[in-house]
């Protein structure tokens, strides 16, 4: 590796505010990996927008030095759509929790994926509702005892990878916040991917999820090897179904197709926010406008 890429300000994207996450929370891993990835790839804070919903994980934007939108619960992705589609030059990164993204927000997840909105979406999947203090999440493991499932969760958890593959995401990956380096590499690739880049980040909640801990993951997590064909959706789906206590991390799937702003009749040619306002300023002939009604 050249020295060039090593000389970057690792703290450029870190906010002055200290996160109010519990010490040891998995989310720190993603925060560190993403701010470093952004610095390394030479992004500028004023050009980056982090967008989140509500949850412990969703306060992420406050701990970064960049623009951000801390939206209502579950609506980070449509909000990101608005940002990206009026200014495709911005780097838009949506972040949030499993409750936010796989629960209340799952519909937007599927639609954003199939649209191939050119953003990176990273879900801090702790398989629990952290901020509301320990209820089941749609990704909670069967049998996990939670505040709202005292006899253990009885609903099959969401499989975010299988689902995003089914939804048409063009970049599907899983990372582990206990392996920040590996995570950072995935993030860099996601940021460089044109289209909907989804990363499910295993991000332990050390306070409310006493089952899926760092240790639990360390025993199960393994890296997808080089033989895994990232362009083969069926292989990716098969990997997403892996059971027997083995949890592959890495890039499951990657395909190239135009992203939404490459196709949209306006954004394929223009940056909307840079265009003048109104008919006249845009050089639109008044008579032509009116002729539609004659």
């Amino acid at each position, binding site marked *: 590796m050249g020295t060039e890429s090593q000389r970057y300000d690792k703290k450029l994207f870190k906010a002055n505010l200290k996160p*109010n996450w519990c010490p040891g929370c998995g989310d720190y891993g993603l925060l560190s990996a993403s701010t470093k990835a952004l610095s390394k790839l030479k992004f500028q804070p*004023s050009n980056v927008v982090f967008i989140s919903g509500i949850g412990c994980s969703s306060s992420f934007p406050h701990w970064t*030095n960049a623009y951000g939108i*801390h*939206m209502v619960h579950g609506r980070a992705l*449509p909000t990101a759509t*608005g940002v990206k589609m009026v200014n495709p030059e911005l780097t838009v990164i949506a972040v949030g929790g499993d409750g936010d993204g796989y629960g209340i927000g799952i519909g937007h997840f599927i639609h954003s994926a199939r649209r191939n909105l050119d953003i990176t979406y990273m879900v801090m999947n702790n398989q629990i509702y952290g901020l509301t203090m320990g209820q089941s999440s749609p990704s909670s493991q069967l049998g996990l005892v939670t505040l709202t499932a005292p006899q253990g969760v009885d609903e099959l958890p969401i499989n975010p990878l299988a689902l995003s593959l089914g939804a048409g995401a063009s970049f599907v990956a899983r990372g582990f916040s206990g392996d920040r380096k590996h995570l950072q590499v995935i993030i860099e690739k996601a940021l460089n991917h044109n289209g909907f880049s989804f990363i499910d980040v295993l991000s332990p909640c050390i306070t409310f999820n006493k089952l899926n801990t760092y240790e639990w993951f360390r025993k199960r997590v393994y890296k997808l090897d080089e033989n895994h064909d990232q362009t083969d959706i069926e292989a990716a789906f098969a990997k997403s179904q892996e059971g027997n206590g083995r949890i592959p991390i890495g890039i499951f799937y990657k395909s190239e197709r135009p992203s939404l702003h490459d196709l949209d009749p*306006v954004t394929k040619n223009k940056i909307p*926010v840079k265009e003048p306002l109104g008919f006249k300023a845009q050089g639109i002939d008044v008579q032509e406008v009116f002729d539609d009604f004659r």
Partner: protein
Amino acid sequence: MISDNSSSSKDTLHNDGYDRFSLRWGGAAGDGLWYIGILLQKYFNRLGYYVQGFPGTQSTIRGGHVWQHIEFSTQKFGSFDSQLDLLIAFNSVTLDVHLHHLKKHGCLIYNSDMKNNNDYKEDIASRKLTVIEIPLKILAKEIDPSTPVLANSLAVGVLIEFLDLDIGEFIAILKQKYSERKEILTKNLIALENGCKYFSENYSTKCKCCNSTVERKDQLIISGNHMIALGAVASGLKFLAQYPITPASSILSFLANRAEKYGVVVRQAEDELAALSMCIGASFAGARSMTASSGPGISLMSETLGYAAMTETPVVIVNSMRAGPSTGIPTKMEQADLMSAIYMSHGESPRVILAPRNVQECFDITTRAFNIAERYQVPVIILSDFALSERTESVTPFNLDVNIDRGIIWEGETKEYSKFKRYQLSDNGISPRAFPPTKNAEYILVGAEHDELSHSLSGNRCGLPLSGNIRKEMFKKRFRKLELIREQEMNPPEIYGPIQADHTILCWGSTQGAVMEVIDQLNSAKGASWNMLSFFDLFPLPYQKIQSYLDKIQNSLIIEVNYTGQLENLLHSHLNWRPDDRIHPLSGENPTPSYILTELEKFSEYF
């Protein structure tokens, strides 16, 4: 063969000529009535008449019963009337529903293919109607058995011949319309001609309309929804996200068709929650953005609307009201979303509500909406309704070049605004905005209570003594803006008729035109004893400005198409004032002048 019943003398047909003519087509959904109705309106328009059109539809795509109401006149007019001069019945349901609306001595053009109209014989006779029978379906089949909609052009031929108007302009319209579909054009031209021919071969009565006096060839036939769309583009709209719903859908499809040309990113969202959220994102990034919906979709926006208000993110939301509650009657009008617009979303947050009263005002109010939204950084709701959204009207070309005020935007240090503080506590409550990628303004928009720098007060600072104070200041800031809007932007109602009158009718939104006609009729019959106050700026209600108007009122009556009297309650709660009487049309149909007059007669004190 003029039907026996119309044996009455020729003057039944206004031989001195109608100066205003009201006609209705009725048939089944899917027969293309709406489409030909627009062409017919353009036609009357080209002849120099003032024109209005309105669809009567159902949540049924084919079959069922739909109609199209068209009126034209030599004088500008404000509304439809339910009293018809002419009815074209493609099927017998049309007779069930509309025959009783035909004026005495009116004309009925009747598709004689359909089952006999014996049920109506008596009615037709007693009201001395002129009946013209045409086997529309049979004639259409003769031209092309596979294109039953040719019946429409046939009927137009009959109509134009009957009205003794110039067929040439209609031919020109067809030619323009189908310039690229020659075959269809040819068939329609034949149908048109056959219609004329059939009529003149079988009938001799004509129904004369006054010649129009003005040359109005450049007039537009345009709907309220299209005016809102134009108003938005004129104001610099860059982003529209919308989910289809009657009667707001045509804003979306109109702009989707012109996205590239007008430079507007148009996205059909997966639902209304997404639509408004997308607009928030677009607005944050610096674009003027809008969404449109109707009741059910607007309700779904409740949470995000509060977010827009709390984060002071400008956005324009069109609510084309339809008959509720719940699914209600989606293809009918109502004015029942005023209170929910004022109070929707938990907690207390400012917003602005404007209600256009006519098609032209749909444009004007939209341009105001964008400026208010950005100047004061609030969500602005445009309360339109079905009767305006889908009503077409002839409108004189107007200036599309409108004033655009984007409010305070920070692009770097200035004297007044050195460091960027998104929620700087200013005297008037308004703070600077900044858009990415502006340098040194990076901030996080947040729906939690926040300080001047947009840092959240819900986390580690929650409950600490200072936070409580900042919260109070932020509350005051947000509501200071609302007071400023009330004072600087909101208009009192408009008076129509004499300034002083014995009787005043109050109304808001789309009923304005009908009430205007009522006022005219009453005043011309009984001297200038009636006037109207029509409201359009509804929230924040400029009650101080309104007081003087109310003070002048002698007797008053309010018309609102809702059950509970929403504007009435709003006036009452601000001004301790109530009208003497009220009319609440609830059938779903637009209240027409005749309807209103009939209702007025129930209040004996007026007459």
